């Protein structure tokens, strides 16, 4: 037992090392990146937060949501409308964005959590498209297909570097909170629901209630991602809410590995950087991406990070045996 515990601490330290290293790299990144790639990095961070919110439902609770972009878009639209129409405070606008996404998440979730599997996926898709249509059609209120332009952050956040640091802080804090949630008794409960919902219900868990709470948390973080992105991009458009946008975290999770906390983050980084790089010489980006996803599904069923983890574990086992 004693030996086991020190071993655990050691591996914790080792794990901690690469995280600290990564954070240092992120902290000094603006010094090395062109403005173009700094922008890409910002997008990758925001989309990673979006993917983490999605993966709470998909990777941990085991339900595929195909309407997650609706909450991302709602967060973005709330901020855009509050800042441009009533010159609302930037910080309060972001909080409002999270709140709007959560409240709509509660309403949509109320209907969706009664279903599981493919029915859940289809209903979230339907609700997502419904919310998209409202935003798209309600021209007077949302600007319709024109979207909303001129969404500016406060003066000191106007430089991309400063905004990058703001995004980095929000991302790290959110990732920390989500990490804590997943490893909490609540997290253990939704993982158990994924593994065997019948067994879990017969241990006294009201499945729909826990699904609803998870749905709202996921909506809140998706809303936060949208809310912090829009003032950086200075504009918002209805395309943020479409099912195509909802598909991005799905692909990122599968690419990086839905079973690991940072899997979807890795997936989003690959997708975002790959996208901006490929666009330089071909417009057939979806074809390239599709091929990549296909390759991962066939050859690395646990995703790229899942594959790496597996190899590391194998090596550890060999070392332990020696």
């Amino acid at each position: 037992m004693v030996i086991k515990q020190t071993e655990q601490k050691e591996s914790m330290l080792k794990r901690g090392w690469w995280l600290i290293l990564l954070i240092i790299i992120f902290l000094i990144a603006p010094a090395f990146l062109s403005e173009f790639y700094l922008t890409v990095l910002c997008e990758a961070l925001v989309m990673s937060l979006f993917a983490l919110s999605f993966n709470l439902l998909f990777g941990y609770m085991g339900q595929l949501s195909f309407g997650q972009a609706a909450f991302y878009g709602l967060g973005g639209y709330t901020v855009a409308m509050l800042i441009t129409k009533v010159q609302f405070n930037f910080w309060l606008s972001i909080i409002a964005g999270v709140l709007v996404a959560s409240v709509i998440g509660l309403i949509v979730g109320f209907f969706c959590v009664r279903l599981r599997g493919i029915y859940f996926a289809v209903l979230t898709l339907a609700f997502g498209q419904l919310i998209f249509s409202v935003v798209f059609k309600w021209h007077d209120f949302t600007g319709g297909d024109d979207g909303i332009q001129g969404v500016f952050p406060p003066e000191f956040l106007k430089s991309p570097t400063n905004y990058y640091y703001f995004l980095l802080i929000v991302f790290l804090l959110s990732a920390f909170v989500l990490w804590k949630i997943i490893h909490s008794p609540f997290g253990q409960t939704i993982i158990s629901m994924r593994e065997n919902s019948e067994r879990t219900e017969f241990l006294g868990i009201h499945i729909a209630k826990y699904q609803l709470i998870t749905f709202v948390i996921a909506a809140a973080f998706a809303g936060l991602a949208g809310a912090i992105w829009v003032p950086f991009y200075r504009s918002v458009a209805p395309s943020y809410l479409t099912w195509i946008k909802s598909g991005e975290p799905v692909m990122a999770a599968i690419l990086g590995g839905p079973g690991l906390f940072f899997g979807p983050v890795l997936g989003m980084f690959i997708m975002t950087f790959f996208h901006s790089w490929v666009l330089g010489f071909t417009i057939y980006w979806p074809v390239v991406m599709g091929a990549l996803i296909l390759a991962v599904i066939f050859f690395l069923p646990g995703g790229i990070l899942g594959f790496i983890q597996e190899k590391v574990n194998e090596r550890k086992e060999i070392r332990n045996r020696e």
Partner: protein
Amino acid sequence: MFLQTQGITKEFGKLRAVNEVSLEIVKGDIHAIIGPNGAGKSTYFNLVTGYHRATSGKVLFKGKEITNLPAYSRCNLGITRSFQITSIYPKLTVYESVLMGLLSHRKVTLNFFSSAKKFFKEEVWRTLEDVGLADQANTLGDSISHGDKKRLELAITLGTEPELLCLDEPTCGMSPEETDIAMGLIKKFSEERGLTILFTEHDMSVVFGIAKRISVLHQGTLIADGTPQEVRASKEVQKVYLGGSA
């Protein structure tokens, strides 16, 4: 009065799987439900535990009507069950699986920020030791033997510290040695933890060896209910079920 069903009936289309069964389970008893294949034993369990809703009749637990309560609320009142087809967590470790029952029962599942692994260490280890799975604590649920899976399910349900534990064929598929161990455990828990146990079982030597009361179902109908001696003596039971061999 502990658990009581009053004229409980379950119909699947035209089939009456359980037909007006009125039965009382006494607190602290080890109570067996027996009957040939398709007699309605599992369906009766399903009505008691909330897996199915009764077509008619009532289920009362400690004087409270629970006929239409969902399964999770019945569990929270103290009724837990195992399934005929073992229901465990294939991709969770044995330790995590047992922990889940405790997290739920001790009402900490709405804790979002503490580490789940820090909870109830003593209780989990004690339960694992009680059922003899401590040495496999870090093994995944689907990598242990069939008999161990059955014991794991028992351990998971014990985590909810039930008052009434319903075990649907707890030794099904076990070797005779494993069966002895499992039945010994069940008896021990009943004595040590004051558990009331309702179980079904095909092996008559097991049933008559451990049960304090036996109820016999035949085509959904209760045809006998009493002590092992009384049931053994019942003409009707001999006719339809024991085939005179007892």
